[in-house]
């Protein structure tokens, strides 16, 4: 049996499922097969108001990855906010830069907090390597501007998601290892905003996540500085177990 036959069988099982449990099983199987042909059916499953099936479909779409991006962007459901949130989650999980404008728009202006949350998360996990290196900085600046704005969203969960993305972004930037005091402009804007949020955010959960982000950023910076120092200060000297006595 080739992929196409298998896809047809699994797709039919989804279409013919007559209970929410059967639907869940069928979507899980289809998602696990990871076949490109299943993309439209998996996208449709985002709108069935069956959270289990939607989770499975999102996982399936993320696993399929880049081939799912075009259809997701095209078929993204403008009417059902539940389905749109799952679609944005799938795009966020894939991290393909073709979704950048959709994610920026959704994170800033969508009326559904689940959509804003998923989009805010996705902005932190984009596949930067897809960009030509000379473009990375300007796109990152655009994303940071958006995230700083979203970090003032009225809903705690959207601000929480923004914090996770601010964290990953600052970690993705080339750290100023030569001079640990001067961070790149974007990174210092982020760390400044995190400090501000720690002092002023109304929500304890968000403030706690900010603390966690700061801790992880610091750890990484220490590691990088340490890695550099050890390289500089300890030129390779062959030991023959001298220190082990």
């Amino acid at each position, binding site marked *: 049996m080739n992929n196409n036959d298998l896809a047809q069988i699994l797709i039919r099982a989804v279409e013919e499922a007559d209970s929410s449990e059967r639907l*869940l099983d069928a979507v899980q199987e289809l998602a696990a097969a990871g076949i490109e042909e299943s993309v439209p059916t998996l996208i449709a499953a985002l709108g069935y108001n069956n959270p289990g099936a939607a989770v499975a479909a999102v996982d399936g779409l993320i696993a399929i990855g880049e081939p799912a991006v075009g259809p997701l962007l095209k078929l993204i459901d403008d009417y059902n906010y*539940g389905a749109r949130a799952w679609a944005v989650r799938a795009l966020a999980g894939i991290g393909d830069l073709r979704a950048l404008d959709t994610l920026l728009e959704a994170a800033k202006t969508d009326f559904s907090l689940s959509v804003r949350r998923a989009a805010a998360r996705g902005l932190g996990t984009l596949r930067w390597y897809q960009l030509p290196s000379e473009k990375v900085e300007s796109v990152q600046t655009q994303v940071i501007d958006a995230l700083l704005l979203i970090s003032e969203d009225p809903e705690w*969960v959207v601000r*929480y998601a923004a914090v*996770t993305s601010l964290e990953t972004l600052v970690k993705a930037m080339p750290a100023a290892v030569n001079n640990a005091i001067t961070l790149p402009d974007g990174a210092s804007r982020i760390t400044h905003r995190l400090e501000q949020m720690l002092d002023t955010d109304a929500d304890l*959960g968000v403030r706690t996540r900010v603390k966690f982000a700061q801790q992880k950023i610091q750890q990484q910076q220490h590691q990088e500085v340490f890695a550099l120092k050890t390289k500089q200060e300890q030129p390779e000297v062959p030991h023959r177990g001298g220190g082990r006595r």
Partner: protein
Amino acid sequence: MNPSPQKIEDLSLTSEFADGESLTVEQAIANLQGVDLGLRFYAAWWLGRFRVCEPAAVRGLIRALEDEADRTPEGGYPLRRNAVRALGKIGDGQAVVPLIACLDCSDYYVREAAAQSLEMLGDVVCISALGKLLKAGLEGEHLKSKQPDLSQPYDAILEALGRLKATEYIPLVKPFLEHPIEVVQYAAARAMYQLTQEPSYAQRLVQALAGDKLQLRRAVLADLGAIGYLPAAEAISETLAENSLKLISLKGLLEHQVNHTTASSLSEGAIKVMNLMDSLL
């Protein structure tokens, strides 16, 4: 701080929609006593939604608890229901005594909302009135034999007694673990955990996350968040329900961790919960 059914309602319903007609505080307060019953009803909701804690708003809402004008065909009091809910959200202690009186209202939904709002206000003065209502379902220390008894909002009453740490009511709460309605059982389990800190009661909620009704899994997510039961973290993140509700539930666990650790550094439990939350965004 912990998620309550009201907060979930905020998050999953009201906040998902644009905020309808825009009002000013003065207009809303005036509308409470206007001739248009629809505008009164909306004004009461609006004052609660935006937690308008001005004295005139609180006075107006307390007055609305005795409204007779707005009735459903079944005899319910829509304006009273909204006023009760709003007073819980606004959190002014003056509402406690008038809300206790609402526990005797003929409208079930007014009584239910009153129990929820009294829980939010957190004043232990209401405990005996809540206990009295709970006893309606009991003969001595057993559930009434004629079941299922749906005459009182037992789940809301049980949750309030648990939150208010009414340990003297443990013997009356416990029988409700056997109530034929599952949400009532879960409310009893939640309250028993809060009153005794006995993990077996919280574990019963964790098991319920594997049940097959979505509506019940949602209710249990709110319960586990409210009690902040850390060992439930993975089960919460894996249950089949909307991520929004799982996130609220996990936030309850996270805040419980932070509030119950004195150290300024993040606890292992808090970090674990945050990693799970990140994966659900």
